[in-house]
């Protein structure tokens, strides 16, 4: 079923930080939400999560850093049980085994606390938790910026493979158009709290229509810069 929200808006201290916005995401679609710092992309992401959950849709969120998702005093097994009971699901060893295999964290010791795992494995564990119960939408906020490039690329590849055969849609929030261009089919471009462009990735890259999209395209990757 299509995910759809109309007239989404947000204010902070009486000032509008998100102007009325419509978003539609198809099952299994991969969408990038891009813009510079302060453009309102995280605000739209969070408002979208709230609105879809109010509609009864299953939306999972992976924050930028695993530190925000994991309690340093609790074991990994505890986190996993919490995530299952949050979805009203009974403990299921087969499900855990499948998700751990998909994200290659089978070797992780569940009795340990987060800091007993490497950072890359923590992040993949958080992604695996988010995928419990096959959500309608997975929202990832700058998923690669807290990781080594090698670890980040490996994580995104594993996620791509896992999502390829499933109905879970992906919303990738990032300032990095280069990353989005590699990973999503459609781009939403934000500027000043407004959604200014919504088009296929190739179309935005080849013919950006707005100043915000043109700026992101011009700065897409380092070697394109006139040095």
């Amino acid at each position, binding site marked *: 079923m299509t995910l759809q929200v109309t007239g989404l808006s947000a204010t902070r201290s009486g000032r509008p930080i998100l102007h009325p916005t419509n978003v539609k995401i198809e099952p299994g679609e991969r969408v990038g939400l891009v813009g*510079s*710092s302060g453009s309102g992309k995280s605000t739209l992401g969070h408002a979208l999560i709230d609105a879809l959950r109010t509609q009864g849709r299953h939306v999972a969120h992976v924050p930028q850093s695993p530190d925000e998702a994991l309690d340093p005093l609790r074991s990994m097994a505890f986190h996993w049980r919490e995530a299952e009971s949050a979805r009203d699901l009974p403990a299921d060893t087969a499900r855990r085994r499948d998700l751990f295999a998909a994200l290659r964290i089978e070797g992780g010791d569940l009795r340990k606390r987060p800091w007993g795992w490497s*950072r890359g494995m923590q992040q993949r564990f958080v992604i695996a938790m988010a995928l419990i119960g096959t959500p309608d939408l997975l929202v990832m906020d700058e998923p*690669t*910026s807290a990781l*080594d*490039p*090698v*670890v*980040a*690329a*490996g994580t*995104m*590849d594993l996620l791509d493979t896992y999502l390829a055969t499933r109905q879970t849609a992906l919303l990738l929030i990032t*300032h*990095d*158009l*280069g*990353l*989005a*261009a*590699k*990973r999503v089919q459609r781009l939403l471009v934000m500027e000043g709290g407004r959604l200014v462009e919504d088009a296929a990735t190739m179309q935005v890259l080849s013919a950006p229509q707005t100043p915000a999209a043109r*700026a*992101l395209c011009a*700065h*897409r*990757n*380092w*070697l*394109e*810069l006139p*040095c």
Partner: protein
Amino acid sequence: MLTVEHVSVERGKTLVLEDISLSLAPNRTLTVVGESGAGKSTLIAAILGLAPCTSGQILWAGAPVRRCGPALVMQEPRSAFNPVLSLRRSVMEPLTARRARLDDNRLKTLCDGLEIPPDLLERRPAQVSIGQAQRVGILRALIGAPPLVLFDEPLSALDAVTQKHTARLIADLQRQEGFAALIVTHDLGYAAAFADDIAVLRAGRIEEQTASRAFIDAPQTDYGRILRDAAFSLGALERVA
């Protein structure tokens, strides 16, 4: 000229850097890339004299490197400043410490080059954007005209557009000022676009060291290839057909 000769650094019983040799001439840029824990930040600390070398030596023009007054630009722009002081006070610290006088023309030239409006320096760190704070961080590093400037992940806290803009400002200032730049970064795209040479650090050792464009075309080691391919797959580089 910076010369790092067979430097090793131990922390406790662990060898964090092992037999590192590098050289870097004025007006040139060397980036050091590698995974977390490879020893990148320890290398910076060793050059600044903050991590004692267990063997080897680090020299600038044949004398101990500290004598040339190397400067550092830090990763987190806002927390790099004392939060209760105006940015101007912080920027003056390198001069105050050496009892040097401020040359108003130099301050103005640097502010123009870094696109820092004059009144910005009267504010405190929390009152400016992260991009502005990082440009002031660069101003503080350059105010005393150091011949060697170290950058520890100078762009990672900034968004993509600001990153590339700031990288350009650093490169333009380097052309005017002629300092040698040693940049520690995760970002191979930045290294490829702005550095003369790339050194790949892994587990405290230098795996390879080459001209940056040559590295992107053909890394010499397996680990170098893994790093380059990750940068392509994250969209930091475009594959040239």
